């Protein structure tokens, strides 16, 4: 190693030690813990793959995975469609548009717990905002989080409300689309829809792909609002809530760590699948 390279190495050494101590070691430790029966206090007892076998036999695991999967399937496309539409709307340089950009982005900077508490009121069956508006039109609103059938729609509404989070990336991508493409399309007689279909959407696919991957990860890691709000019939028992409860309510660290590895595998698998589909729909020059 040259002297200059060695100096560089020494400078990154604290970071490298941090990576080993705080990332690589916990991952290795987690891999080991997932193979043990450990209640956090006593010594971990090696039990091989029993935790993984128990996970797949557990009804709670199946239920929480189903709750999360169903949410992800619906929420991810909904959020992408909503935030993309918002981005297209606020990308125009009309007067006062900056205010709308701030308003739409604002949910992204609000704490998850605060959002959950606000939505607890919005979705209140008797005095909530939504049912209040519905009752104005003489429509009896549902019980939302108190009715198992309406728990998922409740979470989807919350997800859409926070869709502005990815607004910035879409806006940046929209601004990158060359104006001359639209000008050429206009000369060729393309209407607004055709411009969106043949120019905007194809050129936005790389950023849609990026948000799709992040959206899948976020959906499977949904925790804060679900932990605060729950939902009737355990319909609000998302995977991460189940994992947290197993670890810190039931003190089954080995089992919970196995759940974490399974979640990692699921997300990895989905990311690989999405990545594989990239060649069919993501535009690249």
């Amino acid at each position, binding site marked *: 190693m040259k002297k200059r390279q060695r100096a560089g190495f020494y400078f990154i050494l604290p970071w490298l030690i941090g990576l080993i101590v705080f990332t690589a070691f916990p991952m290795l430790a987690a891999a080991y813990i997932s193979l043990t029966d450990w209640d*956090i206090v006593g010594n971990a007892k090696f039990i091989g793959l029993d935790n993984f076998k128990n996970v797949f036999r557990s009804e709670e695991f199946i239920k929480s995975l189903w709750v999360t999967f169903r949410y992800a399937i619906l929420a991810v496309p909904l959020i992408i469609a909503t935030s993309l539409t918002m981005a297209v709307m606020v990308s125009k340089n009309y007067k006062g548009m900056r205010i709308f950009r701030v308003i739409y982005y604002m949910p992204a900077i609000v704490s998850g717990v605060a959002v959950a508490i606000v939505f607890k009121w919005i979705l*209140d069956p008797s005095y909530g905002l939504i049912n209040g508006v519905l009752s104005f039109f003489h429509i009896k609103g549902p019980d939302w989080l108190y009715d198992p059938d309406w728990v998922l729609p409740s979470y989807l509404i919350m997800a859409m409300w926070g869709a502005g989070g990815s607004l910035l990336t879409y806006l940046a991508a929209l601004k990158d689309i060359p104006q001359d493409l639209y000008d050429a399309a206009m000369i060729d007689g393309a209407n607004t829809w055709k411009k969106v279909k043949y120019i905007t959407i194809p050129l936005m696919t790389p950023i849609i792909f990026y948000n799709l991957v992040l959206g899948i990860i976020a959906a499977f890691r949904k925790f804060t609002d679900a932990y605060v709000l729950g939902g009737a019939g355990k319909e609000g028992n998302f995977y991460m809530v189940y994992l947290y409860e197993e670890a810190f309510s039931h003190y089954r660290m080995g089992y919970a760590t196995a759940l974490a590895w399974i979640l990692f595998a699921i997300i990895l698998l989905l990311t690989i699948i999405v990545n594989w589909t990239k060649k069919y729909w993501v535009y690249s020059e």
Partner: protein
Amino acid sequence: MKRNILIWIVFLLVLSMLNGCSKNSKDKNTFTFATWAAGTELEEFQAVIDKVNEEAAGEYKIEVLSIPSDYYVKISTKIAAKNSPDFFWLTQELISKYAKMGALADITEQFKHSDSLIPDMYYEGVLASAEYNGSYWGLPWIANPIIVFYNKTMFDELGIECPTATDDWTWEEFIDICRQVSGKEYKGNTVYGTIIDGWPNIETFIWAGGGDIIAKDGETIVLASEEAKKGMGYLQTIIKEGLSPRYAEVASLGSNNVWFEKQRVAMFFGGVQDNFETKVDKMDESEKFEIGYAPMPVCDDGSPWSFDWTASTVMAKSLEGNDLAYKALEAVTKAFFEWKIVPPVKGSINNVIKINPKKEVAMETIAYIMDYARSANYIPEWSDINDKLWYNLYVSLLNDASFDYRSQMDEIQAYSQDLISKR
């Protein structure tokens, strides 16, 4: 030269990092005390500790460790890191679990042979919450049994006879009063007899029929008994007949106690600590009402069992047999008896008025109910059993009054018994 300087910089960085992770060393007569108290409660807690330290005159010193959020996550993480606080508060449900995990010191011998605080001084039902496997694992420092708060003004105006401070009313009589109240108009609202929304705890109803969840041996599940099912039948009646607001409706006023404060329900199951007296005092004259107090209705086994929430101060396993630590634990526990209501020891009931003079009107009921204060028979598997009781039984019944709770109780019994068999 440059190389040496670089090596020293790296060495110092690593050293400072490792130093940050290391456990602070402290004297053998200094003990840390973890509490969930925050804000005003923490200031009061600190004052109690300061007083105890002063009285110890240097023999030992207690240092406060405040963990106001994610308390149990942090406590368990500290224990896992072999950095357990010396003393910490532990809620009754977790005593057996932590004891089984080996996190707590067994204090049985020191407790039994103490000169100033022995088991007989405690209310039996309260102390049972700190007992597991025939040993004591902590000193209870607070009790908060449930009593019935009722709106005496509403009762009088609706012409309904009030229960008395030490009434021997039954659950059937309680439900009958709910029927008399529910549906009546009062102060412009339709009122309910009581409010049930997951509170009071399910134990209240299971005991109501003379049943229980876990037998005293800690190994037998008795949830499927006819007595337990009869008790749940009382709950079903209340929900089915609309004697309580709908479960989905309760949150509309914020929380269940607000329904009582806003005079929308006549009777409220509340812990004796609930400070309705202060809240009513602060109301506008037109909103004020007189609060009445009654013990829990008598269960079918003849006792007015009252679910009691108790917390204990426990000692880290590493201090087992340490007499100085136990002396400090005992001193601080006794100091708590003059700080929090209700002191869980007999003969200290008058402390309640000293601590909160507004509770004087409730004293007769509080003194009466302490003899019937009890918690469930908690075992290490409780968190799993409780999950089933809550989601599969209580919430299911709250959401659907026609829910087949009897079959569900059979299922939970089988599930719980199976859990125990795997010990």
